[in-house]
């Protein structure tokens, strides 16, 4: 049942130690900084985090990693010029990494939301990221079997929500939001604006409210 929640602290209060948490965003675009800060404050730890990256600079996901709350990262591109907190943890052997090609990451998240038990893709065939995986010749191409990535919770950022929880996003900040909302058991969304039900054109809704559990407006 959809809830509108007053503070980011209340919104993330139910996230348990050991959870798998999907966090939207590609770099800083679409990253739900306020929800991540609240998750940090909540003390939840031993998390598996799914995000395209592994944090930038000294904010958001990077801080969650710095503080040792993340046991494992599932991502496509951890190493960046400003990923020093991840780099340090990784080199110290204090964080586990599952490196996934970005398209497989997106498709595996999509599969979880869509009830697909697994799929074959040519991406990664013949590379070290497909080692040990089942392969099969399909449509004339060697393909690799990949499985869905499910999550307990998704933290995402959208532009607007209406009273039914329908969401619209802004430009390339959309990125992983819609597929993560569908893949998690519980989806928490921070938005810039809550509009009355009926104010979003039904043709333009990107994430239908069925995928949304908690909404919090962030100034």
């Amino acid at each position, binding site marked *: 049942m959809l809830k509108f929640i007053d503070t980011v602290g209340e919104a993330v209060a139910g996230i348990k130690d050991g959870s798998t948490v999907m966090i939207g965003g590609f770099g800083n675009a679409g990253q739900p900084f306020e929800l991540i800060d609240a998750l940090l404050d909540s003390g939840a730890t031993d998390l598996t985090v799914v995000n395209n990256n592994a944090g930038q600079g000294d904010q958001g996901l990077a801080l969650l990693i710095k503080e040792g709350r993340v046991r494992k990262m599932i991502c496509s591109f951890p190493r960046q010029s400003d990923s020093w907190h991840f780099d340090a943890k990784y080199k110290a052997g204090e964080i586990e990494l599952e490196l996934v090609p970005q398209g497989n990451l997106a498709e595996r998240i*999509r599969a979880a939301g*869509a009830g697909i038990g697994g799929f074959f893709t040519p991406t990664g065939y013949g590379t070290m990221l497909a080692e040990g995986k089942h392969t099969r010749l399909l449509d004339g191409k060697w393909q690799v079997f990949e499985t869905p990535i499910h999550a307990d919770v998704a933290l995402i950022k959208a532009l607007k929500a209406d009273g*039914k929880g329908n969401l619209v996003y802004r430009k390339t900040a959309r990125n992983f939001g819609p597929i993560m909302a*569908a893949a998690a058991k519980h989806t928490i969304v921070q938005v810039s604006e809550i509009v009355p039900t009926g104010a*979003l054109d039904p043709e333009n809704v990107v994430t*239908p*409210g*069925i995928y949304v559990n908690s909404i919090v407006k962030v100034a």
Partner: protein
Amino acid sequence: MSTQTSTKPLGRDDLARLVARDIAPGSFVNLGIGQPTLVSNYLTEEQNITLHTENGMLGMGPEAKGEEIDGDLINAGKIPVTELPGASYFHHADSFAIMRGGHLDICVLGAFQVSATGDLANWHTGAPDAIPAVGGAMDLATGAKDVFVMMTLLTRDGVSKLVDTCSYPLTGVGCVTRVYTDKAVFLIAPDGVSVRETFGCTFEELQELVPVPLKAAGAVVGL
């Protein structure tokens, strides 16, 4: 303990009213073609139920009448419908992802037969000369969190449609959780079939009609 909550068997509308009452507030629901469609007539505004139609919409409103009719706005039964505030449209793969990904709380379907373990047969009579047509039945049966069936308990020949094993071709395996019939409401669980309430018959009279061992669940009202 008596299971009987009505002195007469329920008519189609009374049964639809009962199903509607049992749907938890805020649920996302898909109503199958035919008898299940009647349920929408009895959903209240307070329940805040969102209806899904598999041809690409959440927030479907009542059947369109007169000038409301728009050929681009139809339901899965190809009947013109209306749009409620807060509706959304999406393409077919996204629509079935909602169903197949387990996001619908309840779907309500008709049936030829339901087995004691929740197998559903509702798409094909198995007649060799029949033209088969499945539509979204298998996706709904497999995908929704709860699958409610609405049917008459007996065929016109007086044979129970709640059976030990389906003789008609299956739609889904072990998917039905509840069966609403004119004579009783059945709950299907891993430990067997229990009877929530009976209409116009006693538990013992019901057991005489049904070739599946039944337990009395007691007359629980609501979910």
